[in-house]
């Protein structure tokens, strides 16, 4: 139970391969932080640097008030769950879970008690005499988690711990892990490429791309106020659609020009865009804030249906007009087929604005 900080951390694999660039992050005591990003974004490397399994090229990692840069993993008081479980194949499940306790020279009867407690919690107590190769993926996974939670470390490190489970088990493990972390109150860093895991479990999400931390905020903020266009399209299922628009004037008023059409702005956004003073913009719209209709509606864009996917409760329709493609959610009663003409509509209050040059979000006017 400790605070964890990255202070200007870089990771250079040599040959110009920079895995992590200038990472700065302060994680609070007992916080559940998720490192989210696509594969190869440097999230696992960051976690491995925290664990002491990877050398830090420059900068420092601090636990509490102690710089741990050159501390070997065994002296960091961490517990880690690996993506590929990394169980000891020649040891029984009991010995696998007991290993960290044996290492800490805890008396045998207490080891036994604690291993059985953990096994009960994870519902693997009937498997304790087996070896890893006799277990299913989910059971192996729970063993790996058991090995981590059997002692009370300062920090939990999870590297995509439930990525290989089937969807149903994954959903259950999500809530179990969250509950467990809440109960133990241990600072937790959780690496995942699955935004649903990050959004549902984390107190704060650190979104990474290409070795750079894009945004570090609560799930709510990351979803509602993405820091840049990349975060906007990455977070959300499906992500935001982006359209290139230009500032223009209509009847002497500020408006947006888009595909030979002009979009009127509400007062708030007008003030915001005037203050920003940018002419080229990327405008984002979440699929559930856009709607399509076969009827002609004033102010709607005429477009063609590019694809339609049934999501169960509703239909995800991707429409195309000019060079832009926008996703919108429609009611299951929407019958438009691929290639058919339809009309897209969204409100100007629901639009997100990003600078077309650097992708940064246009700040709100308070």
């Amino acid at each position, binding site marked *: 139970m400790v605070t964890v900080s990255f202070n200007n951390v870089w990771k250079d694999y040599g040959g110009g391969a920079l895995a992590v660039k200038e990472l700065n992050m302060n994680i609070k005591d007992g916080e559940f932080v998720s490192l989210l990003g696509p594969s190869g974004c440097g999230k696992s490397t960051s976690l491995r640097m925290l664990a002491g399994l990877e050398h830090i090229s420059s900068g420092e990692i601090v636990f509490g008030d102690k710089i741990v840069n050159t501390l070997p993993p065994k002296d960091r008081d961490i517990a880690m769950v690996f993506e590929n479980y990394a169980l*000891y194949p020649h040891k029984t499940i009991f010995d696998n879970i007991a290993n960290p306790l044996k290492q800490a020279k805890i008396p045998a009867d207490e080891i036994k008690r604690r291993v059985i407690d953990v096994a009960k919690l994870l519902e693997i107590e009937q498997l304790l005499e087996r070896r890893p190769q006799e277990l299913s993926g989910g059971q192996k996974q729970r063993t790996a988690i058991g090995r981590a939670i059997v002692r009370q470390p300062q920090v939990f490190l999870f590297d995509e711990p439930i990525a290989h489970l089937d969807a149903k088990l994954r959903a259950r493990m999500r809530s179990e892990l969250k509950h467990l972390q809440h109960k133990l109150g241990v600072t937790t860093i959780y690496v995942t490429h699955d935004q649903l895991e990050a959004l549902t479990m984390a107190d704060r999400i650190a979104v990474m791309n290409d070795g750079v931390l894009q945004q570090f905020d609560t799930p709510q903020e990351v979803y509602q106020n993405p820091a840049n266009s990349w975060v906007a399209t990455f977070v959300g299922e499906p992500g935001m659609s982006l359209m290139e628009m230009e500032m223009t004037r209509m009847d002497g008023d500020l408006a947006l020009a888009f595909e030979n059409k002009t979009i009127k702005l509400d007062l708030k956004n007008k003030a915001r865009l005037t203050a920003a003073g940018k002419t080229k913009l990327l405008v984002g719209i979440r699929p559930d804030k856009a709607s399509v209709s076969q009827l002609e509606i004033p102010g709607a864009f005429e477009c063609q249906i590019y694809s339609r996917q049934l999501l169960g409760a509703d239909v995800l329709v991707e429409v195309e007009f000019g060079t832009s493609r926008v996703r919108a959610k429609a009611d299951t009663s929407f019958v438009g087929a691929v290639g058919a003409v339809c009309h897209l509509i969204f409100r100007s209050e629901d639009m997100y604005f990003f600078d077309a040059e650097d992708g940064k979000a246009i700040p709100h006017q308070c």
Partner: protein
Amino acid sequence: MASREIISYDKGVAIKLLKWISPVFLGFYLIWALLPLFIMFMASFKDLLDAFSVPDAGDWAGVTMFFDFSPTFTHYVALFTENNFGVYLLNSLFASIGSAIIAVTLGSMCAYSLSRSEFRGKKDLLFWIISTRMAPIVAVIVPLYAIFRSADLVGTLPGLILAYTTFNLPFAIWMLKGFFDGIPYAIEEAAQVDGKNRFQAFLMILPLAAPGIGAFVILCILFAWNDFLFSTIIGSGGAKTLPVATKELVQPQNIDWGKIMAAGIVTTAPMIPLGLLVRRYLVAGLTMGAVKD
């Protein structure tokens, strides 16, 4: 996991024929391989007269004569009392086991570090290591003799062990590197996170490499045990081993067949159970790491 069922397809005539021929061939092969051993075994218990007795007529009735003798242990007794075979047996054991232990200890450490670390010139280093094994022994034995001679190692057991190790070590490094490559590094990382230091983490995965290491110990022992050339030239005199001692039983004027047969049994016998014991691991060892699972 893929099914292990064996699917039987329609077979041509040639395949059907092969199905009949192969057991016959294997039968002949078995006789060819085992008969000399069997004759050697029988002959080691016969006195000279019995060993060379031939039936009058060359028909199958005479086969019983082969088994018609009174067993004697004189050859074995003579080997150990007159010919010092006890000493040679110990020399063979010390030389082969000693070199195997040294090769495996040094080899596993070297193989481990080559498997786990990346550095410039690693491939070249690996090739250089195995290249010492590419030259035929005859080609290096003369310079090796000169070196051993100047180091006063000729005719000594440590000298012989060293000679075997020079040949076993490169082989050990290459084979054991394959085993360590097959063990995921994540297991050691997990051990380190669990509170072990780097060396303890290495000890943690050692049991996983045990089949390979075991198989390799046997290969080293077999190589040294069967060796004749090093033993005659480097070990001659003070560190004579069984193959050399057996060869010396062949004298120009008198070939002592009984003793030679007994010596053959003494030389072969210890290796047979060893071979049977590790047969499984030997195959596992040689193919381990060949297929990624």
